[in-house]
C-alpha cells in the first residue's frame, strides 16, 4: 500500500490501482454525507480534482494521485457515503485507475513514511 500527502491510499489490484482515503483522513473529516465520484472512462492527470467529499463539517476535494484513466468507481458511496467512515481502507474505496506511468507510484510514501507524516 502507498500513501500521498493528501491522505489517499493506493493499492495495486489486477493491474489497476485502487484509491481511497486513509482512516486518519476519514476521522479528521468527520461523518461523511456525500461523495461525488468521477465517471468511469475519464482521463485524469496527477493533482486534478477528481472527488468531492462533503462531511458534516465541510467540503473537501480529493486530487488524482497519479495520471491515468478512471476504470471503475465505487457506486455504493452514492447512497452510503458513511462507508468511508466505517471502512476507509476497504469498502470505502473511491475509484480504480489504470496508471499511464506506473513509475509515479515509486514517488509515494510507504506505510512507515505515512505514519511518520501524520505524526
Amino acid at each position: 500500500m502507498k500513501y500521498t500527502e493528501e491522505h489517499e491510499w493506493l493499492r495495486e489490484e489486477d493491474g489497476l490501482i485502487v484509491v481511497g482515503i486513509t482512516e486518519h483522513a476519514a476521522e479528521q473529516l468527520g461523518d461523511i454525507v456525500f461523495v461525488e465520484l468521477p465517471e468511469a472512462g475519464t482521463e485524469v492527470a496527477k493533482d486534478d480534482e477528481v472527488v468531492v467529499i462533503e462531511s458534516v463539517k465541510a467540503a473537501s476535494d480529493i486530487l488524482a494521485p497519479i495520471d491515468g484513466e478512471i476504470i471503475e468507481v465505487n457506486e455504493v458511496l452514492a447512497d452510503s457515503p458513511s462507508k468511508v467512515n466505517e471502512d476507509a481502507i476497504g469498502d470505502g474505496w473511491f475509484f480504480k485507475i489504470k496508471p499511464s506511468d506506473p513509475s509515479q507510484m515509486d514517488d509515494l510514501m510507504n506505510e512507515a513514511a505515512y505514519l511518520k507524516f501524520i505524526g
Partner: protein
Amino acid sequence: MSEPLRQTPLHALHIELGAKMVPFAGYEMPVQYPLGVMKEHLHTRNKAGLFDVSHMGQVVVWPKSGEYEQAALAMERLVPVDVAGLGEMRQRYGMFTNDAGGILDDLMLANLGNHLFVVVNAGCKQADIEHMKAHLSDSCDIEVLDDRALLALQGPAAETALARLQPAVTDMKFMDVARDVDIAGINVVISRSGYTGEDGYEISVADTDAVALARALLALEEVEPIGLGARDSLRLEAGLCLYGHDIDTKTTPAEAALGWAIQKVRRAGGKREGGFPGADVILPQLIEGASRRRVGLRPDGRAPMREGTVLFAGAEGGEAIGTITSGAFGPTIEGPMSMGYVPADLAAPGTQVYGEVRGKRQPAQVAALPFTTPNFKR
C-alpha cells in the same frame, strides 16, 4: 482575534469527556465529543442531549420601582415583542432592532416577577449590554450574571430523565420558567425551552455548581453530551435562525419570517403599537409583506448547499436572486437542507430555484420550515 479565548465553567469537564474544542464567539467550546456530530444529533432527537451554552449572556433587568411592568415597558422600547403582556414565570423569543428595521440580536425574555431576565447570544452580548444600559438605565438597573452557567437538556427523553432528579419539572409547559428549583441538591432557574426543535429544558446555575449539575445530568442513562456541531444541524432542521448568519442588521424581522414573534399589541392598530427602533420599516412590512423572505430549501441529491451559495431562478443565465445563509446535511431528514433569502414571488414551498455549487447550478426546492416536526409540550 487577539484576545485570549474565554472558557466556560465546564471547560475541564469537556476535555475529560474527550471533546474537540474550537473557538466560537470568543470562547473555547466543544464542537463534538467522541460520539461524533451525526450520532450526537440523532441521540438528541431520539433520547436526550446535554449542551453547554454558558457562553450566552444572562442579564437581569431590575426595574427601579420593583414592578416587572416598568422593566417590561422599558424593554419594549428596544424590541418589537409584547414584553409587558408576558405572564409571570413565562418566557418568549424576541429581537433587538435598529432604526433601519434590522436585527441587532435575537434573545429570550422572561418575566420573573420582580425582574426581567434575558438571555442573549455570546457574539453580541457586550453590544447588547451596552445597548440596554444606554437605553434602559433611566428606569432600570442592568445586572450581568457573569457568574452563572447555562446548560440545555434537549430531547424527547429530557422530561423523564430530569424528573428522576426533580419530579416537578413534568408540570412545566413549553416556555414556562421556574426558580429556586432543586436539581440534585443544586439551586437552579429552569425554563422549558431550547433551540433544537425538541422538548427540553434550559437551566441557569451558579458557575460553582455547574460541574456538579452537569455530572448529575450526564449520569442519567438517556443523556449524552452534545457539541456545537450537532447543535447547529439540530437548530437548522428545526428552522431556527443563527444570528450573524440567517439574521443580522441587514435583515428585518418580516424578511426573516419572524413575524410570529411580533404580537398584535405591538403591530399597527395595537394598544402599544410601534415605539421600537425601525417600527416605521417593520410594521408596514408585516402588513404588505417584505420584498424578500427567508425560506427553507431542500437541494436535490445529497450534496449540501452551504452558507454563501448564490441562488438563481433558472438553470442558466439571469441575475442572482439571493444567497444561502445556513446549509448542512440533516441527519434526521437524511438529506441536505438550507435556509436562505429569495424574492417574495419565489418564496412559495415547491418553487424550484438553483444554487451554484462548485461552478454548477444545482436544483433545490423551496420547503416549509421547520424541516422536522417540533416536539414541544405546550
